[in-house]
């Protein structure tokens, strides 16, 4: 199986994107889309940002620095992050995010514990930069150094943002739990 770096070199040669694009897309599309969904809290923004990211991947394949890593996922996250943030700047989706949330299927939500559904409902209350760090470190398992490269921030900032994100998430989930309890008590 060809590495991302080799596939990107083929893409940078120009012409029909072909198999190189299909392979890269199949390999990374879901991770990219999930990041966009979690950070933007909007499936429409996530779709647009994902599309733009992979178009940029094709157009800028020659910019990829293979010496940094053979996996392009970090580079793609960087492109995606700018696209998501641009969409969030251009729209008022943050005001809508509390209602929309992440588009997990209803069947799946029913299977999961109530705490997970609370987490799903609490995420929109975090700041964008907190969701970014939370997704990359807590959900994708990237280490602090890789995350700092993707987000273009110092490692120390990654640590502090993650700490604040976890604290904010805990608070939001506790408030959500309290609201549910009060709703049950008062009918």
């Amino acid at each position: 199986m060809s590495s991302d770096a080799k596939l990107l070199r083929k893409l940078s040669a120009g012409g029909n994107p072909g198999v190189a694009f299909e392979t890269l897309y199949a390999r990374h599309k879901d991770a990219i889309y999930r990041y966009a969904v979690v950070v933007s809290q909007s499936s429409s923004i996530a779709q647009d940002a994902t599309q733009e990211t992979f178009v940029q991947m094709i157009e800028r394949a020659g910019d990829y620095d293979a010496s940094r890593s053979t996996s392009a996922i970090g580079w793609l996250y960087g492109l995606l992050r700018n696209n998501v943030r641009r969409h969030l700047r251009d729209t008022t989706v943050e005001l809508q995010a509390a209602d929309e949330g992440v588009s997990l299927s209803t069947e799946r939500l029913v299977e999961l514990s109530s705490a997970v559904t609370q987490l799903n409902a609490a995420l929109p209350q975090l700041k964008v930069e907190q969701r970014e760090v939370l997704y990359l470190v807590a959900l994708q398992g990237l280490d602090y150094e890789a995350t700092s490269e993707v987000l273009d921030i110092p490692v120390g900032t990654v640590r502090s943002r993650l700490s604040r994100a976890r604290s904010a998430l805990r608070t939001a989930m506790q408030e959500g739990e309290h609201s549910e309890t009060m709703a049950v008590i008062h009918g």
Partner: protein
Amino acid sequence: MVNKDTELDQHLAAYKEALDDVKAPAEIEARILAAVQSPEQPKVRFAFTKYFPRQNWLPWGFAAVLAVFGLSVVLSPDSAVSVSPDNPKIVLASVSRQYPVRVHSLARGAEWRFMQSQVIKDQRGNTRLVVVNPAWRSE
């Protein structure tokens, strides 16, 4: 109640498992390929920057200005440079322009440099450009 880090980590792990069900919609791939293979031609300004990157504009622009200037002096139909027989300090050049310009001294042996000039009319009414002869040295 979520009071402990370990509890939050467990919830995050469960959430990640749920997130695995989230897939990129199938239609995105077709839209990507359509966007990349669009027959739309690049705008002229982008084509320009492809061959003339911004970082080269300043030196290219400066060179273009110099070239235009040099050509304008050399190719001017009225230009002719000679040392005044009356005063070797003066280099005379006839030019068609009616205003003071910076000129490149073309006198033999002169150093290449710019100097301020003055446009005058000689006794016959011809427009003459007067500059200091850079090759002149007081004896």
